[in-house]
Every structure is written in structure tokens, then in C-alpha cells.
């Protein structure tokens, strides 16, 4: 499996989905060789053990060193030193690299601290990592291809029946491995270039996606919405596509309400996600402005970071609602739990959302959700309020209703927290196994 991100550093839905799926597959006893790109932001892993089974004298790349992770019995993790991270654009990538170069040049000691994964200090850090993080190629596309070469190298010395690649950056790797090994390739489409960039499509990314879709035996799409994009924009026959919805890990334990005692005067409406064009943050602010015309005790929280954050702060100020909108920056772990606990409503106004895990997380925190109809999750979620992302009047209408009418909140919460249990990774994993079997049988 060519996947992404492991806890605790998960920057979005892609990592969560890969981890959830890998874990559920592992629980079924599916053996997974999980190739994990490890850029500079993805150094530290929890509950990871290094197992060095191979011959250390073998040339670099031929070693059979892999990591195991607690709780994922059948997963062998092979980290690859490639500086690719999800959700990065070509331009952002170059800027990010520049910043890192500068940091490296100025302080050697900081670099030493920042780089090695602090797993076992006695082991040389490069041992567990295939390739060295220092020799990065210049731009994102070179890095994607460099990653592909390294993965192909790993594939030579390992046994597997099927290749499962998640999103475009791993597609070249998936295609090379498929060509080398003759094994079927299943690509998993969590988002397309059209979701990420609207109509300003990067042709090179599109070409890679297209090659991946055409070269794959089966394409797993996270929603019908995504499947429609894949078939209509990339010329893929429907018969190759399968829809498998994402899921969520609900532990079934009641959530401990820390903040229950805190009296809050203000109702809180939450936006949580990357503050980028595809997430529709400006529609959230426009609706906020409308809501504040008829209610005054409401606070709007925008949690997340992204390339539009400065524009949003300025926009809120320009609209005269700056004092009612709070920007928290990127949140993780406990902070996410805490913000959900404070929220009276979670709003996901995405312009384009292939699936959208965050509403399920909100529901599992007992927070009612208002989601855009332009999201994959709205195809399957019944107990949610839904609105077209551009319809700010209706968005505001529904926000006001949730804040004003406790019975509405109650009904949404009661049914929602029940419904969210239907989204289990074990079901998604079962469906994946079916797709694997189809791919192996039909080639």
C-alpha cells in the first residue's frame, strides 16, 4: 500500500483514511507492506518499532528493514525519505523547500534535532529510512518520480499480490511497480485535481492522475461525486470504478464533557478544516454576517490553516464582523476535542469535497452538522443539514435555526450520533478486499 501519514501527525482526511483503512485491513489479517513517505514535517511516529530483518551489508535499498506499529499486527511499515506531503501544490512545495534550505544553512544543531525520528537513539536514523532525506530533487514532480524509483526498488525485494496507491503523488510509483511486478494496481481516489484547484487545473498533475486511472485495474472513489469526476473528466469507464465511502473510528465510549460546567453566553459556530478555496471559507463568513443581522450572541470560530487565512481575516474585518470571528490556526489532538465540545454547530461549506471526514468527527463529538451538498459525505449522511455552498441565505437560515431551537439540535444530535456508527472502517476494508479480488481475477 502506497499510503500517507500515521498518527499523531495527520494533517487531513487522506492520512486518517489511509491509517483507518490499513488498520481495519490488518484486523482482517490482510498482510500490508505500507510505504510511507517521510518528509521533513512527518518525522515523529508513535508506537513504532524498528525491525531489522535483513542483511545489513547489502547495498542500500536491499535491506529488509521495516517498522511495525502497535495495534497494526499485519502491517509492515517502510518509510521512504521523500519530501512529499499531501495537499501541497507545486508552488507551495518550492517555497517550503526554500524555507527548509535556509533553516538548514543557518543552524546545524537545529537541523540535527529536527531531522532524525526519535525512535531509538542508538540506531542510525538513516537505517530505517529508505533513501536519504537530504538529497531532495528540486521540484515536486521530480520528487514524485524520485519517490517512484525508490518504491520500485523496495518492490523488487518484497512479495505482494496487489498494489494499492492513494492519490496522485503515489500513482507514478504504483504504475512502475505494476509494470515491474505484473501485479494489478488499484488506485484510491480521495480527491482529483478538479477538487483541489477548481478550474485552474495543473496539467502535469492531471496527466499523472489520468495515467494512474487508466493504468489501474480498479479505481476506488470515495463518493459518487468523485466517481462522476473520474468518469467524466478523465475518460474512465464506469465499470472500472467502485465507490467506497470513508469511515470513522468511534470508540463507543461516551465523551467526557469537560466544558459542561462552563457557562458560555455565546453560541459557537465552528468551521474546521484547511482554509483554502475548496473549503469555501468565504461562504462561511458571508453566512456569519447574515446570521449576525438577526442574532447577536454568536461567535464564529475558524479553526485551521491554509493559503487563504490572511484574506479571510481581512475579509472578516472588512465585513465588520471581525470581533465575532476567531481564527485559531491549525488544531490537533486534544484541542480538536475541546473545540468540538464548545461548538453548537459545525459547518462545512466546501465548494468541492470528495468525501469530508470532518462532519463525521463532529457527529461523533455530538455536534450537529451543516454540510454543503457539494460533498461526498452528503450522499450518505441523512441526519445532517444540507445546503448549496453558494446559498449563503439558506446557510444563515439554517445556522440561526440550529442556534435558536434546542429541539432541532437535540434531534440532529440523537440521530447523528447513532448514524455515525454506520461508518465503520471494517466495512470499508471489506469492500476493499472485494475490489482486490476483482482486480486479481480480472486483471
Amino acid at each position, binding site marked *: 500500500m502506497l499510503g500517507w501519514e500515521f498518527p499523531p501527525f495527520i494533517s487531513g482526511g487522506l492520512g486518517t483514511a489511509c491509517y483507518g483503512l490499513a488498520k481495519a485491513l490488518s484486523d482482517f489479517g490482510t498482510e500490508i507492506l505500507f510505504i510511507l513517505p517521510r518528509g521533513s514535517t512527518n518525522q515523529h511516529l508513535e508506537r513504532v518499532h524498528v525491525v531489522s530483518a535483513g542483511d545489513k551489508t547489502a547495498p542500500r535499498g536491499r535491506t529488509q528493514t521495516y517498522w511495525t506499529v502497535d495495534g497494526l499486527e499485519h502491517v509492515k511499515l517502510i518509510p521512504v525519505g521523500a519530501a512529499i506531503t499531501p495537499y501541497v501544490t507545486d508552488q507551495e512545495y518550492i517555497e517550503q523547500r526554500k524555507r527548509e534550505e535556509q533553516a538548514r544553512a543557518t543552524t546545524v544543531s537545529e537541523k540535527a534535532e529536527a531531522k532524525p525520528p526519535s525512535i531509538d537513539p542508538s540506531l542510525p536514523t538513516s537505517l530505517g529510512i529508505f533513501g536519504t532525506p537530504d538529497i531532495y530533487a528540486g521540484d515536486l514532480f521530480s520528487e514524485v518520480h524520485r519517490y517512484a524509483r525508490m518504491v520500485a526498488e523496495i518492490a523488487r525485494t518484497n512479495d505482494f499480490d496487489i498494489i494499492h496507491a492513494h492519490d496522485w503523488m503515489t500513482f507514478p510509483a504504483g504504475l512502475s511497480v505494476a509494470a515491474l511486478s505484473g501485479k494489478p494496481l488499484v488506485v484510491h481516489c480521495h480527491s482529483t485535481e478538479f477538487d483541489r484547484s477548481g478550474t485552474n487545473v495543473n496539467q502535469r498533475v492531471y496527466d499523472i492522475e489520468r495515467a494512474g486511472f487508466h493504468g489501474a485495474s480498479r479505481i476506488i472513489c470515495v463518493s459518487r461525486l468523485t466517481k462522476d469526476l473520474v468518469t467524466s473528466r478523465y475518460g474512465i469507464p464506469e465499470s472500472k470504478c467502485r465507490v467506497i465511502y470513508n469511515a470513522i473510528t468511534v470508540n463507543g465510549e461516551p465523551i467526557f464533557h469537560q466544558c459542561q460546567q462552563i457557562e458560555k453566553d455565546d453560541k459557537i459556530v465552528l468551521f474546521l478544516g484547511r482554509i483554502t478555496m475548496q473549503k469555501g471559507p468565504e461562504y462561511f463568513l458571508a453566512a456569519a454576517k*447574515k446570521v449576525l443581522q438577526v442574532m447577536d450572541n454568536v461567535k464564529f470560530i475558524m479553526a485551521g490553516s491554509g493559503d487563504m487565512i490572511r484574506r479571510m481575516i481581512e475579509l472578516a474585518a472588512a465585513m465588520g464582523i471581525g470581533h465575532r470571528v476567531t481564527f485559531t490556526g491549525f488544531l490537533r489532538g486534544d484541542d480538536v476535542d475541546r473545540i468540538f465540545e464548545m461548538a453548537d454547530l459545525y459547518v462545512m461549506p466546501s465548494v468541492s469535497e470528495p468525501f469530508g471526514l470532518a462532519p463525521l468527527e463532529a457527529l461523533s463529538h455530538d455536534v450537529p452538522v451543516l454540510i454543503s451538498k457539494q460533498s461526498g459525505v452528503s450522499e450518505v449522511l441523512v441526519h445532517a443539514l444540507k445546503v448549496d455552498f453558494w446559498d449563503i441565505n439558506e446557510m444563515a437560515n439554517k445556522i440561526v435555526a440550529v442556534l435558536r431551537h434546542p429541539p432541532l439540535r437535540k434531534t440532529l444530535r440523537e440521530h447523528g450520533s447513532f448514524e455515525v456508527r454506520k461508518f465503520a472502517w471494517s466495512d470499508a476494508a471489506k469492500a476493499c478486499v472485494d475490489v482486490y479480488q476483482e482486480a486479481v481475477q480480472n486483471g
Partner: protein
Amino acid sequence: MASVCFYFQVHQPFRLRRYSVFDTDTNYFDDYKNAEICRKVAQKCYLPTNRLMLELIQRHGKAFSISYSITGVALEQFQKWAPEVVDSFRALVDTGQAEILAETYYHSLAFLYSREEFRDQVTAHTAKIGETFGVRPRIFRNTELIYNNDLAHFVQGMGYAGICAEGADHVLGYRSPNYLYRPIGCDRLALMLKNYRLSDDIAFRFSDRNWAEWPLRAEKFAEWVNQVNGNGFVVNLFMDYETFGEHQWADSGIFDFLYHLPEQVLKHKDNNFMTLSQAAQAYQPVAELDIPHMVSWADMERDLSAWLGNAMQSNALHELYRLEEAVKTSGDPQLLHDWRRLQTSDHFYYMCTKWFADGDVHKYFNPYESPYDSYINFMNCLDNVRSRLRR
């Protein structure tokens, strides 16, 4: 004897328009859509079925009769948008073979919240029926066959000869719906219970190809009616009139079935057709029936949960009826009429969240994408009613 008693429910609510929290006008109802639905159902169901019924009455004479309950809000809409429907009902009533039942004008749940409002609405309905058809109803049926002992007692007090209810298993137990009963504590009122198996064979299962009895023909159905002979007086077939041509489309053969049913039933010399008041007069109640809890003909549960099953529904209803006194003392007839049209049970039915099991029926002409949307819309209208009261 087996007397087939048809009672058909005719109802169309005033559906609400999209009314946002930012709206301030007092036009809550979607005239365009309501007119469109009225005309559509008139073409597909009311007009062709009424034509067929008239033909059957002419063909079979006194041997064929039927009963209708037509809500005030439906009549109001027919008069506005499809007056030929009113004429065709009048033609049926004029034969003397079609009886009209009493109910609340607004097809409301008023009995659950206000006896005074309930009585007012029944009176308004009776007046409307009198002025439209020139008859006075003698049998009462409550909205969606909602019924319990208290209702029976109250309705007897209003002078009616009979009342309809659902023949639900949990109230009948071992008893048969094919007899008349006496509600506990009543001495004059006849209780007539829906034979839900035979009724639903027509209303719900008729065009279901997975049903073992499909295709249902008039001969077969008449056989089932004959089986009641000797162990029952009546076969109460109560259903929505929209069954004909709307729930069951014309191409399912439902009109053919209906056309041939009387001749097949009447082949057996002990069978006949009766209106509900004829049945109430012809047969004596066989036992007392004690139904303390509310029953209805809705969904699998046959209770109130279709309108009062979640917090939103109960909140909306309570908030609505809380305004009763203020609305009535306001002296504003338009406000009173608007408030009453908001009482129509359909508004609360749309808010039902049990729709996974009973989805199809709840979706019938449901203008909303979700029960949450319908609650939000309703509460926005109600907010506006409240603001009119403050003025």
C-alpha cells in the same frame, strides 16, 4: 351478511413555501405548487375515479354505495384551482349513494391539544360540507384515524352516530375488525374498525410485484370478502382516495380492478355495499371496546409517532397551540386562518425522522429534502405569526 364499506380519504394540505428567517411577509403557503399538485392529482385521480364511481353507482343502483371524508383545506383548494373536482363530488353525493363524513376542517391534531379548537374545526367543516354538498355528516372520522376512548366520548357528545378507527392488532387482540363495537363509556356511538389487511392489499400492495398475491384481480378479492360471510358483518375498506391513479398508477390496472370489484362482490347474494351510516344503522355492536391509548392508521406503529415521534415535532406542535388564545383574541380572521392552516397534520408528518422504514409514504408529495428542513421552515413561519401577534 358481508357489507363492504368503502371510505375514502380526500385531503391536500396547504404546503408551505420556502420561508427563511429573513422573510417578513405573511405569505406562508406555496400557491403555485399547491395549485400544481391539486391539478395534477385531479387529473390522475379525483376526476377519473369520480367518473368511475358515478358509472358504478349508475350501473349497480342501490346495491353500490361509498363514503368520503373530504377535508376543508382540500375543498378550499379544489374550489380555487380545480372546481370541476367539486362538481364531480357533488354529482356523486346527489345520487344519495355517496356519504360524506365529518372531520376537522384543517385535518389537524387539535383533539390532542385543545377540545375547544377541535370542536370549532369540526363545526367549520360541517358548515363547509353543508354549503358545498347540502348534506349533514352523521359519522365522524378523526385526522389519520387517530382515536381513543376520550375522542369517542367527546364525539358522541357532539351527536354523531358512528366513528372510524384503525383495526390495529394491538387494540383488537383476538377480536375481528369485521364487527361493529361500542366504545367503552358510550351508549349510542358505533365504532367501525378498518380491516387493514384487505384495505392495504388495495392501498399498498396492489402493484407490488414481489407480493405473493400479485396480480390482484377483482375475482380474487371478492373471494376474500366472501370468507367474511358468516363470521362478520362488515368489511371496512378505509384508504386514501389517492390510491386510485396516484399511489397506484393507472397502468397498474387499479381502475380495472375497481370497475369489476362491485360485480364480483355482488355475485354472492349475501354481499352488499353500504355507507358507514347505513352500516351503523343496520348492525348492532357486538362488544365494548376499551382503547385508552391513541391509535392511528399511520406507519407500522399505528400510533402518534408519525407526528409526535421526535423533539422537533413535539416542540413545533406545542409552540403552535400555545398561541391559541392570543390568535383568537386578536380578532384578525386572516391570522386565525393562517394559524389554523399551520395545524394541518402534514406539516408535522414531514418532520418525522422514522422515514427509513416507512420512507415511501412519508415522501409522498413531501416538499422537503429532510425532516430538519421542514421543521426549520415551519418554525420560521410560526415566528412570523408570533410577530404578527405582537403588533
